[in-house]
């Protein structure tokens, strides 16, 4: 047994009623790579934030080389040699690589920056671990993979002995990810210890010595990578799901919205690559996937706020050009945006204003440029009543509503119009259980009424509970659809890991 460098002992942390971490214990040995595997919301990020000192644990402690680490002190963590590579880089694109690394490493009032010495140290580190990067390149000119190398170098430059990487491959191409794993193994071989957080089975199997599986804030299993399989890990990660709710059997109707090889390119980056799907009336098509794989672009494209670069979109069987917001609203497409406080509703406006803003030009809400307040308020009041929006009436400032009630308002303004299509992006994200149940019930009700629902969600339970068919989105590509009745959680886990891509290739 090699020397244990880090020991997490019975750490618990609650946010309100939600127990994000429940008596978690794990160890990390010198020269070891441990993968922390779990779905979104399993408690991985909370645990790492505690380790790095961003949060105070409610219970438990962390020992570094046998000594207690003072909780809630990021500086102490850095000082002890813990380096963290966040999923969202903390870098300045206009500065050079060297400058990004050097910030804060010298005495503030020195008359001269020892740039030469720093450059040499950086180059030596880069060489030692195979992290090739030009110290004098402007950071913004680097690829995402290179930027990540800079983040890692930043930690190493501060003499980190333990490196924590939060979803390191989420933003990388496959090739970059492979390079990264080579680097990580090299670092471990040279005596560094690493924890990387992931929900991708492939990379866990490829890179880790040991896998700790988190589910619902608890450690549910610990396996040596050599002694387990992807299939077992998928099952451990996803767990035994509650049985699918029995829903009324339902004939799906005609296809109403089709995409054929649609691509979206923004600033030279492919957000969607030849995406195809066919959405039928009266069905729920679930799009699952790990955050940041193109969900936002897909939702914006279908909501009328993003133009496609190539491919065809068919609405009710007819090819259409780019959708504008007005088109979508006029042609009966309901839209629930991913970010309700940024796009879905304007906090400083009244509930009634948010209820009618997207249809304000319709004659029932305005005549000759004048808002028919009475009609608009009546419409909002109907939504408030029918969709059980609590915490305020039609004239309340929307910001004062809770997240769940704001979402009910957004859902209500769409469903009250009996849309033929509903694009729902992360409709239950961040809501409490009661609100989640209400939102789900409404979506099922809409399906029954014949609405075609495209449900984009990172919550596997949600998709399993609602969808008729499921497609996975990985790196901007959509998998072929599978019937929800025929797949189990394990298969879905594999889909989200992009397993279908290899079959296709």
């Amino acid at each position, binding site marked *: 047994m090699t020397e244990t460098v880090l020991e997490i002992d019975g750490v618990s942390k609650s946010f309100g009623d939600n127990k994000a971490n429940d008596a978690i214990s794990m160890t990390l040995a010198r020269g070891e790579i441990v993968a922390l595997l779990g779905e979104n919301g399993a408690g991985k990020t909370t645990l790492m934030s505690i380790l790095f000192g961003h949060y105070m644990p409610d219970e438990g402690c962390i020992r570094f080389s046998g000594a207690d680490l003072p909780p809630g002190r*990021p*500086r102490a963590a*850095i000082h002890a040699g813990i380096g963290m590579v966040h999923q969202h880089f*903390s*870098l*300045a*694109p*206009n*500065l050079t690589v060297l*400058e*990004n690394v*050097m*910030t*804060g*490493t*010298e*005495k*503030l*009032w*020195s*008359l*001269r*920056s020892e*740039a030469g010495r720093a450059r040499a140290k950086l180059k030596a580190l880069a060489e030692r671990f195979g992290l090739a990067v030009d110290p004098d390149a402007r950071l913004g000119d680097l690829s995402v993979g290179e930027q990540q190398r800079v983040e890692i170098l*930043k930690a190493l430059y501060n003499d980190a002995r333990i490196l924590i990487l939060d979803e390191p491959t989420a933003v990388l191409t496959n090739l970059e990810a492979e390079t990264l794993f080579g680097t990580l193994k090299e670092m471990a071989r040279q005596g560094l210890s690493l924890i990387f957080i992931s929900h991708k089975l492939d990379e866990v199997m490829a890179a880790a010595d040991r896998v700790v599986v988190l589910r619902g804030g608890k450690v549910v299993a610990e396996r040596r990578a050599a002694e387990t399989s992807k299939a077992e890990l998928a099952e451990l990660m996803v767990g035994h799901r509650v049985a699918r709710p029995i829903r009324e059997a339902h004939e799906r109707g005609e296809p109403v919205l089709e995409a054929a090889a649609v691509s979206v390119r923004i600033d030279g980056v492919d957000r969607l690559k030849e995406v195809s799907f066919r959405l039928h009336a009266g069905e729920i098509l679930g799009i699952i996937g790990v955050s940041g794989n193109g969900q936002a672009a897909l939702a914006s494209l279908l909501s009328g706020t993003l133009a496609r670069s190539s491919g065809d979109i068919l609405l009710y069987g007819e090819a259409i050009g780019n959708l504008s917001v007005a088109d979508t609203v006029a042609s009966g497409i309901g839209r629930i945006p991913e970010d309700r406080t940024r796009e879905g509703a304007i906090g400083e406006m009244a509930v009634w204003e948010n209820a009618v803003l997207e249809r304000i030009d319709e004659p029932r809400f305005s005549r000759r440029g004048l808002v028919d307040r009475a009609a608009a308020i009546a419409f909002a009041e109907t939504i408030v009543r029918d969709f059980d929006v609590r915490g305020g009436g039609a004239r309340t400032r929307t910001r004062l509503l809770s997240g769940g009630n704001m979402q009910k308002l957004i859902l209500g303004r769409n469903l009250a119009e009996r849309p033929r299509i509903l694009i729902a992006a992360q409709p239950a994200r961040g809501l409490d259980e009661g609100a989640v149940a209400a939102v789900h019930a409404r979506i099922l009700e809409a399906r029954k009424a014949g609405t075609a629902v495209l449900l984009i969600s990172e919550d596997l339970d949600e998709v399993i509970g609602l969808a008729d068919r499921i497609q996975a989105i990985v790196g901007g590509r959509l998998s072929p659809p599978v019937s929800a009745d025929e797949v189990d959680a394990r298969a879905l886990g594999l889909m989200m890991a992009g397993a279908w891509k290899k079959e296709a290739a």
Partner: protein
Amino acid sequence: MSIVLDIIASAGLWAAVLRIATPLIFGTLGALLCERAGVLNLGIEGIMTFGAMAGWLAVYHGADLWTGLLVAALAGGVFGLLHAALTVTLGLSQHVSGLGVTLFASSFSYYLFRLIVPLSGSPPTIEPFAPVTVPGLADLPFVGPILSAQTPPTYLALLLALLLAYVVFRTPLGLAIRMTGENPHAAEAQGVNPMAVRYGAVIVGSALMAVGGAFLTLSAFNSFFPTMVQGRGWICIALVVFASWRPGRALFGALLFAFFDAFQLRLQTAVDGVPYQVFLMTPYILSIVALCVMARRARVPQALMQPYRRGER
């Protein structure tokens, strides 16, 4: 055409270029320092006005000229503190706060001036900075007479541009300032206190602006009168963009700008038939053109105008 060549060949033009550029150099460097740390300081117009008044008043009451500049710098620093308190601590809109500081600083300087120096037929004057002759330089052909016509603050401005370029690009402090203007969260994670950096940059930057204003009353002219800053502060704000937030280019930009200004002044007297206002407009129009040309190309500090609050992303 020969008129143009005559003007460009005259040493008087180039002496005027340096003179006109001096307050712009101070002001632009001051604004640049604030913006490098992520704070737009539209208080500049008022701070320059107050600096012009405070420096003049100190000298009028018997202080020597250098003390006058120092008084102006301190006064500017106080207004910088006010702007920093509003925009850094409270995180208010940098636009509106800056305008508030400008309106307050300029009206306050008129008030104080009028209170201490009652209105009279001929405004009181002071003995301004005299040109200095630097041994050796003065004997150079063509350049000699140009340099010999300059006062010490002009040399100070030139040195300051070089000094600021060094500090910004070659010292740990400069890196901390730049990181704060680009990504205060990263700065904080790496042990730099972004609030402190912003306070410091805004206070020192405002002090520089005030010195630029004081140059007007202590060197360029010898008296103070309201509205004498004439939009120079706003031009400095435009010059910062033109300079892509680089002190060296700010120096170049201020000189280029002053060249056009000096040139149009001479052209005015040489050319008949064109209203003088057309010439006077050129600085402002040039500033707008410079903004349009550079706005997309320049690398704006990414956190400019974004209030920083700990723990919020």
